């Protein structure tokens, strides 16, 4: 007779199966060396919403949306949106290390538009002052206390509503701002 034989093989089978369901995910999490937890944290983090006219400290500066103007678009059914925003420098080194920016215009349906590569001709014509302002990607960090004024133009359909400016700096990710 085999003394090592399991008297309750069915029970052991189910216990082993249940243990596998726990041990396997734990093994994956441990093996990822924290990267999986970081990824989940970033994936489920929502941007900080900044109310109209308010400012928010982020990545070494205090950010504020100063204007969101609709201008006539060159293509039928389109509008050019000129977004003007500023960053009051709080920590020069941190801001410099956080560039470049990832900027998008977001509507109430969650659609996202990237800025135009060149300044739209209608912006040059109707708002030449704004056309001179740097993009977030081309702006250079100034000294503490300085304010960097920037502008970006977007081509969007006329029916887009509830517009907000989504702003993220690579050095500040996974945090980001949603400026109303």
């Amino acid at each position, binding site marked *: 007779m085999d003394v090592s034989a399991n008297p309750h093989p069915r029970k052991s089978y189910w216990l082993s199966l249940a243990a596998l369901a726990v041990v396997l995910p734990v093994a994956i999490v441990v093996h990822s060396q924290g990267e999986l937890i970081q990824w989940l944290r970033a994936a489920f983090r929502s941007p900080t919403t900044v109310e109209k006219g308010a400012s928010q400290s982020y990545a070494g500066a205090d950010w504020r949306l100063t204007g969101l103007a609709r201008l006539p678009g*060159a*293509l*039928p*059914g*389109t509008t050019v949106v000129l977004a003007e925003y500023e960053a009051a420098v709080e920590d020069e080194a941190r801001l410099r290390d956080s560039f470049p920016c990832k900027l*998008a215009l977001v509507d109430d349906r*969650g*659609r*996202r*538009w*990237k800025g135009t*590569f060149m300044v739209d001709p209608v912006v040059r014509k109707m708002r030449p002052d704004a056309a001179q302002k740097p993009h977030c990607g081309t702006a250079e960090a100034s000294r503490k206390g300085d304010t960097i004024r920037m502008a970006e133009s977007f*081509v*969007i*359909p006329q*029916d*887009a509503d509830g517009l907000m400016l989504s702003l993220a700096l690579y050095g500040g990710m996974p945090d980001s701002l949603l400026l109303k």
Partner: protein
Amino acid sequence: MNGAVRSLTAVIVAAGVLYAMQRSTPLYSDITSPVPVAGRQGERVDTSAFAIGIAKVYLARSITFPSLSRTQHYATSGVWVVVESAVEAKNESLGLTSAEWLGPDGLRYRYSQRLTNVPGMPGNEQFEPGIPRPMLMIFEVPESQIAGARLLVARSPYAPLAEEAWIDMAALSTDDIHPSITLSRGGQQMPWILKVE
């Protein structure tokens, strides 16, 4: 004796199954290849990232396109396939950089790298959500690969498991081949002007 025959049969069957599995194992590139979204020419084809509709297809023996300094003539020993389409991004601004002509023999032809400077070609335009824009695709293919072809369009050639539009093209024949097509720069609304000769 009966048991031995059964065991031998089981071993042979198992070996056959293992061989079949080994031969039919998909490559990693097959497992991660784009997910096809089927459609037909003349219809709107919706992928998760963009929608595309094929308007017109032209065949020609040569293409003429004026560059900055002089007019260039592009000849071919095959056929030029010029596809006019409209594209709209769904959720976010994007560029389309992958367009392939899938011939009836399973041969794939990427959009021509000889004419990438023509306005409207893949990679030259950013598509925006809610704003349909024209896109031009030009392929250089053998005559045998015209009829019964499919057009494959994706956001990028290197996007595993992303959706790719697979568009069945309307019947084309060698009778539809024009001697020449002239392309020139258009305006903001239509980036190119196409003239059949």
